[in-house]
């Protein structure tokens, strides 16, 4: 069966520091991968999605970037965090269907 991992689970970072969040999927090949952010009390905002290695589509222009170095690995990065980057970051996958399955998430607090 498929599983999705995200780490770290929680993160507290100062403004201006870099960020790297990692997501890996097991038990499937060539998944579509997604990064979402959920601010407190808000809905899910799609940040990036990828349909294959090295293929990244950006939904929201901002100081975040994403990379997909391997088929089942998706990384979210920033060179310099802003206060507004605080939120709950979710990775999701799908294969040959519209149904997306979410990882456990990373709660990021920028101080």
């Amino acid at each position, binding site marked *: 069966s498929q599983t999705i991992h995200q780490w770290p689970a929680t993160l507290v970072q100062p403004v201006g520091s870099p960020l790297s969040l990692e997501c890996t999927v097991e038990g499937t090949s060539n998944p579509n991968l997604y990064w979402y952010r959920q601010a407190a009390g808000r*809905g*899910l905002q*799609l940040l990036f*999605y990828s349909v294959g290695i090295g293929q990244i*589509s950006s939904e929201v222009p901002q100081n975040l970037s994403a990379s997909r170095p391997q088929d089942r690995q998706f990384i979210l990065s920033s060179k310099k965090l802003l206060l507004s980057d605080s939120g709950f970051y*979710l990775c999701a996958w799908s294969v040959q*269907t*519209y149904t997306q399955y*979410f990882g456990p998430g990373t709660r990021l607090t920028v101080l």
Partner: protein
Amino acid sequence: EDKVVQSPLSLVVHEGDTVTLNCSYEVTNFRSLLWYKQEKKAPTFLFMLTSSGIEKKSGRLSSILDKKELFSILNITATQTGDSAIYLCAGPNFGNEKLTFGTGTRLTIIP
């Protein structure tokens, strides 16, 4: 632009009550509609609806789609405190693999 609107935004009921959550959508070239339950962490998949008028059921939860009216409802009967969560509705965008999420309905069940 694709749009998914959920109502009510929040709902507080007593244990044992029956609730109905609403989702209306304007999605180009509609394919399906999905419901998720989000407790403290990641959303978990509940239902995917593709055919109008056909009810999907899982235990005390059921959902139905009205393609003509661009509307779906999620019913929960004999509610329990474990049903307390945010319920999210989402519609896929035709031509790619993205989902547009509504802002969710926060359901609170009082013992």
